[in-house]
Structures are given as structure tokens and as C-alpha cells.
């Protein structure tokens, strides 16, 4: 196995697919663990957007894994090469497990530049083409604890031909094999885990082929690619993921890329996904929105009364479009703080939220910061949205443990009335 001692301990499996447990001994020293279902800490070059270490650590429980992307890092190859100490030290990161992915799911990704031997990422200066050799050179400089193999995932556009999908599967397998070869020869990557990437677009046969073949390789886990929001509807996504996870070993984790919306997360957990990327809070922040969807399922008579009151006050109107496939549009899981109705609302963003923003500030203040284009708006919203989203994942785990997934889904969608 590619250097990994990552252990997946499952405490519960529902319907043979939906899993609750813990990923243990992650990190080179094996000193960290990650509860699953869980999400990663999204970052730009190691920095959670808008936040410094001080503001980041106002969050009481951070995911133990920080995600960085080659699309941010690739342009700094020379610097990292000269630095030699690995990315974590270069960035002054806190004690965290570093996961290196290829693309940034929250960034626009142009298509049409992938070849048999290369994939491309877009840095601040433009397109950077990566061969496996260059990809692995970067990994040796970054020295992550875990990374995904180079893969061709350009299958999400409508009308991608079967031929193109097949190519993405073939190429990704070839890239994986090459990565593993280089990995085994690289001292800098000793103890580092590699995930294989399952491709196959929206074609069941290709998905199964990719899954079976990738599972044959000595990888520590699997990335599920090409399923991102907008690539297909949730029904198809669930169907394909369920079929794919059938082919994957039970004792290795599955990380789904490009999906972050709470309702999609729930459906994918039930289809067999263990890990998600954490970019959704960032997207909400950039819209000037605060995540506010509920995820409490413990029966609470007081909140039921409050719910009725809010229904009457018209407050539980969905804020956005549930079926919106465009990741930049506001979803029903958030509120638009720029809306005039928040101008003199002195309540916290979300009642009962323990984040720094909700403990210290009010909607009226955040509204003011957004209207006046102040940088602090992004800082406060990012703190709240990150906290809210991670609390949601905790709720998912609790719901799984207590057989309350159905209740949770209805609560999240806002259709729970009792």
C-alpha cells in the first residue's frame, strides 16, 4: 500500500452503504483522526479564506484535515523547491493533516486542455500544464500527508461523449499507475497516502470499470470525481455513487469532490460517501450570505413553538432555489445579509450558534459591513459559515448514530413541521 497506515474504523453501516466511523492514524506520524461522515477544511494556499490563524482558531472544533489544491500551489513550485521544508512549514500552518487535491472545486475550471499525458490547472498567472512527472515533483515539494493521484475528470459537461468518458477513465488509471511508481521511489513521500480517483462521467459501465480497476491498485482510499454540483442531478448521482461504492473495498474511505450543498451531502452519505470537501461555506460567504439551515433533530417543544411563530412571520420562506445547479447562486440554506430586512435586526446570524460572529455581533452589523463593502464582512461570515457547516456534519454523524437520518433530511430541507 502506498505508504499509508490510515485505518478506517466503522462503528455502523446502514443498508450496507451508509457509514459512520472514524478514519484513524492519518498524517505522517499517524497522530490524527477524522470522524466520518466528515468534511475537510477548505483553504486557499493553506489559508482558510479571509482568516488568519487567530480568527481561524475561534472555531472550537476544526476538521483535522486541511485541503490545499495544486491550482493554488503549482505556480509557486520554484519557491517550494528552494524552501525544501514542505508546504506546511512554508505556510506556517497549525498542527493539521495536509491533503493535496488537484483542482479547487470552488474555482472556475476551463476545459479543453487535457491531453493523454497532461492535465492543466489555473494559477493567478494563467494555465500551468502538468505531466505526471511534474505533478509528482510538486507532491515531493509540498510533502502533504495525503494526496489524490493525477486524474482526468473533464466529463461533467452535458453531452460529453462516451468516447471521451472512456478516455478519462483510461487516462486516470494510467496516471495513477505512474504516480504510484514515482511515489514508491520517493523518500519525501514515505508514509504519505495516495487516493485513487474514480471517474466515468454519467455512464454506469464506465463508473463500474473505473471503480473496479482503481480498487485493484494499492491506494489508501478513493476520490469520486466528475460528480460535482451541476454535472448531474442528485438522483443519478446517488445511483452512480451507490453502484461505485459497491465495487470499492469497505475498509477504505471514499472522498467525494465538488459536492457541498447540505441536501446533496445527505443523499451522498446515504449512497456511501465518507468525506466531502469543505468549500460550500466559502461560496456562501462570497455571496454575502450566512448559512442558516437547521439541523437539530432532538425533540424540543420550545423550538417547535418558535417554528410556528417563524412560519407565521413568513421567515421560513426558502431563500433560494433548491434545484439551482449553478454554484454561484444563493441556496435555500442561507440568508442574504445584504437584504434590507436585516438592517435593524439586532439578533445574531443564527440564534444559539456559538461562533465568534454570533457571540459578538448582530445581523445589523454584518449587513452594514456588506453594504459598505468592508473586509470584515468576509471574515465574520467565513467564521460563521465554517462553524455552521461543521456543526451540520456533527449533526449528520449524530443522526446516523441514532437512526434519525430521515428526520435530519426533513429538518435540513425545512419540511419538518413538528
Amino acid at each position, binding site marked *: 500500500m502506498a505508504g499509508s497506515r490510515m485505518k478506517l474504523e466503522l462503528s455502523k453501516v446502514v443498508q450496507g452503504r451508509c457509514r459512520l466511523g472514524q478514519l484513524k492514524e492519518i498524517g505522517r506520524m499517524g497522530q490524527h483522526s477524522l470522524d466520518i461522515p466528515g468534511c475537510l477544511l477548505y483553504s486557499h494556499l493553506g*489559508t482558510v479564506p479571509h482568516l488568519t490563524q*487567530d480568527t481561524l482558531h475561534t472555531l472550537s472544533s476544526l476538521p483535522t484535515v486541511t485541503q490545499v489544491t495544486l491550482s493554488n500551489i503549482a505556480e509557486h513550485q520554484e519557491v517550494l523547491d528552494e524552501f525544501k521544508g514542505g508546504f506546511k512549514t512554508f505556510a506556517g500552518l497549525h498542527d493539521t493533516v495536509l491533503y493535496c487535491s488537484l483542482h479547487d472545486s470552488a474555482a472556475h475550471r476551463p476545459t479543453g486542455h487535457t491531453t493523454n499525458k497532461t492535465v492543466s490547472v489555473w494559477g493567478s498567472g494563467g494555465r500551468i500544464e502538468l505531466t505526471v512527472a511534474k505533478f509528482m515533483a510538486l507532491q515531493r515539494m509540498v510533502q502533504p500527508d495525503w494526496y489524490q493521484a493525477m486524474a482526468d475528470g473533464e466529463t461533467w459537461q452535458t453531452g460529453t461523449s462516451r468516447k471521451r468518458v472512456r478516455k478519462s477513465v483510461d487516462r486516470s488509471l494510467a496516471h495513477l499507475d505512474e504516480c504510484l511508481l514515482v511515489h514508491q521511489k520517493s523518500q519525501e513521500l514515505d508514509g504519505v497516502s495516495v487516493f485513487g480517483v474514480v471517474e466515468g462521467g454519467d455512464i454506469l459501465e464506465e463508473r463500474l470499470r473505473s471503480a473496479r480497476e482503481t480498487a485493484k491498485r494499492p491506494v489508501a482510499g478513493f476520490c469520486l470525481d466528475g460528480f460535482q454540483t451541476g454535472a448531474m442531478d442528485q438522483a443519478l448521482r446517488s445511483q452512480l455513487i451507490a453502484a461505485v461504492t459497491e465495487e470499492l473495498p469497505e475498509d477504505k474511505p471514499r472522498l467525494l469532490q465538488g459536492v457541498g450543498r447540505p441536501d446533496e451531502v445527505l443523499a451522498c452519505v446515504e449512497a456511501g460517501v465518507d468525506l466531502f470537501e469543505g468549500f460550500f461555506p466559502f461560496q456562501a460567504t462570497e455571496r454575502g450570505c450566512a448559512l442558516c439551515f437547521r439541523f437539530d433533530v432532538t425533540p424540543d417543544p420550545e423550538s417547535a413553538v418558535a417554528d410556528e411563530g417563524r412560519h407565521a412571520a413568513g421567515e421560513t420562506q426558502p431563500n433560494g432555489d433548491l434545484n439551482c445547479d449553478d454554484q454561484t447562486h444563493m441556496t435555500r440554506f442561507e440568508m442574504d445579509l445584504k437584504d434590507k430586512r436585516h438592517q435593524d435586526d439586532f439578533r445574531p446570524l443564527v440564534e444559539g450558534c456559538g461562533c465568534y460572529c454570533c457571540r459578538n455581533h448582530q445581523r445589523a452589523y454584518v449587513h452594514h459591513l456588506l*453594504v459598505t463593502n*468592508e473586509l470584515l464582512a468576509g471574515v465574520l461570515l467565513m467564521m460563521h459559515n465554517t462553524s455552521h457547516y461543521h456543526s451540520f456534519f456533527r449533526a449528520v454523524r449524530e443522526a446516523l448514530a441514532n437512526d434519525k437520518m430521515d428526520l435530519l433530511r426533513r429538518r435540513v430541507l425545512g419540511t419538518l413541521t413538528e
Partner: protein
Amino acid sequence: MSTVGGNMAAPITSEADGNIKENSMFLKKTLSAVPPLTLRIVAECPVTKARACDLTLPHSSVSTPVFMPVGTQGTLKGITADQLEGLGCQICLGNTYHLGMRPGPELIEKANGLHGFMNWRRNLLTDSGGFQMVSLVELSEVTEEGVKFKSPYDGKEILLSPEKSISIQNSLGSDIMMQLDDVVSSTVKGPRVEEAMHRSIRWLDRCIAANKHPDKQNLFAIIQGGLDAELRKACLDEMTKRDVPGFAIGGLSGGEEKDDFWRMVTLSTDHLPREKPRYLMGVGYALDLVVCVALGCDMFDCVFPTRTARFGSALVPWGSLQVKQKQYAKDFQPIDPDCQCPTCKRHSRAYLHALFKSDTAAMHHITIHNIAYQLTLMRSVRQSIVEGRFPEFILTFMKRMFPSPDQYPGWAVEALASVNVTLE
């Protein structure tokens, strides 16, 4: 025509009303045991005119000399209140013009004043809005009544009068309020300067009368007079007759020559009372701070450190460092190896250089460093005054800041010489 916030600036309504108001304010004055401002002079430099003081204000005490960062719209550009407090900031600025426009004084009052709105529990100083009249807004007209201008948001004509400015500042609840002054650019010459100086005195009196909370909010006068020594002296003579808790030196820090600038500063401190704080408005470059402390100033504010941070310019004892420049791409030391701020303790120039291409947090890191730099500088200045070695501090400071003595700016050499500090 509507005034800022929608109410007409009220002239005296009826004598009865006026009397009742005066009586209750008199009562407030006698009943309040603790004045809203006390200045305790801890040390005076025997060589220069510098002082180190403890300034006690309603929300907390402030050690002077002090640099006050500017949080224009009720926020310090990407820094949380906790972070600002963590850096040791005891007082910062809010801006009456901006906050008076958005979100407006009524809302801020509902939020328990600007302190409540921003959740800042230390001190706040608000300026009057006068400076923005000159620098930002399409100026309609200055009359004896006040400043008429067009709102940039809806084009409506607004009048900012002394009464209106104080009313907004009363709603903001700042610990120190500035009078509305008739602001004239320091590059303007001629009779307009004299007119503005006299009007500022009359507006000071109107501001004093309009202050609803003299027991909680300190109103500072602003000495005007441009670059004319006689006008400035006349202004000083008149304004120091008023019993205000503190004085600001205004009308400088514009485009004037530094040679004129320092002479007006020292003239002003010569004629301001010793036992009241002296606030030099709009001054924030390190050299200017050090020299003007030597000339007898206690308080300073400037947008420069926080504004320049957002462009990647980090302030250091030897000048500044443009982090975004290529030369720092592979520079793995912190901005200042001796700096104890959160940025320098954790991040390198190279990382910050790279981060500027990926995330706004890069700006926040530099902002934090620059505020720390300014506050640390003032802390060191104060310490050297307390320990009776301020002149030596000045010499060391200059040596560090300038590669060689022939690069010392002439105005600074002269200014320091005027207070008995001879630079080589």
C-alpha cells in the same frame, strides 16, 4: 433640504426649553463625580517637549503618546475587535461622516452606540465629518450655518452644522468627539484661511452648547489658522479660553511643506495648556510621530498604516517593505525578525507574497503587522520618555530609519534641533 439623518438643525426653540436643558446639563456636571477625561503626566522629557501621560477615558485608560488606528466605517479593515484588543489598542477612530450616512445615527443609537454596534469595549474617538467635506464630497457651500453638500448616495442636499455633527456624535457615543471646524486645505492662502479660523471658534462654541453628554463624551477643540503663525496664535488664544477637555491641532497633514508643518505644530504646543492632551490630527508616518512627540504632541491618528497594508506595504523600523515585489518571493524570514506580532511570529515574507495571489487574508496579515508596528513604536517612545532617555531613542530611531545622516530630512533635523536634539 434635509439635514444629515433627516432632522433640521434646530435653532434655539424657546427660552423655557433652553433653560431646562441648561439646568439639567448643569446638574449632570455637578452630579458626576468622575470627569470623563483626566490626564496624569507621568514623565516629561527634560530635553524636548515630550510627555508621557496616562489618559483616563470612560471606557479604559490610554497610555500616551498614542497612535490611534482609524476604523472609518465602524470596523478596522478586516480586523476583528478581539484582534485589535489583542494588539494592545486602547483607542481607535470612527468616522462621523461615513457612519452618519450609513447606517445613520438612529440605528447606531439603537445598537447601544458605536461601541455596541462594533462591539468595541475600549475607547472611541469620532471626528466631526468636517474633513470629509473637503476631501471627499462635492462641496456645495460653506456658510455660517454649516456645510451644505450633496449626498453621494441619493444626491439629496444635506447640511452638516455644528449642532448636527455633535448630535450624530452624541448618538455614536464616542469617548472623544471633535468639534465641527471650517476645514480649509493647508495649501490655500489668503483671507479664506482667516475666515475659517474665526468661524471655527464660533462653531466650537456652538458644539459645546450642543453636547448632550458632557459627562460622558469629551469634546475637543481643533486649532486652525493654516500656516500663518499670527492666525494660529489668535486661534490658540481664543480657543484655550474655552474649558474643553482637550485640543487638537488641525489644518495640517495636508499637502503643505514639512518646513511649515513642524513650525505650526510647535507653535501650537507652545500655547496649549500643559495639563490637557494635544491631539495632532492626520499624522502617522513613523518619523512624523517621533518628531511631533518631541514637539509636545500626545495623540495621533492616520489611515496610512492600515491603508498601505492593503497594498502589501509592511512598515518596518528601516522604512517599508513591499511584500508583493518579486524580491520577496523566496525570502523566508518574517517581515521583521524582531517583531512580536502574530503575523511575524508565524509567516514569512515569501508566504505572504504568495498569499497575495490567492486570498484577501494576505491583507489582514499586513494590517495586523502595521498596527502592531505603530503601537509598538509609540510604546517604545513612551518607555524612553518615562526612563528619561527619549533623546537617545530619537538618535537610534533615526539611525535605523535612514541609511546615513546625510539622508535625514532637513525639516526633521531642524525641528528636533528646536527642541535641543542635535542629529549628527
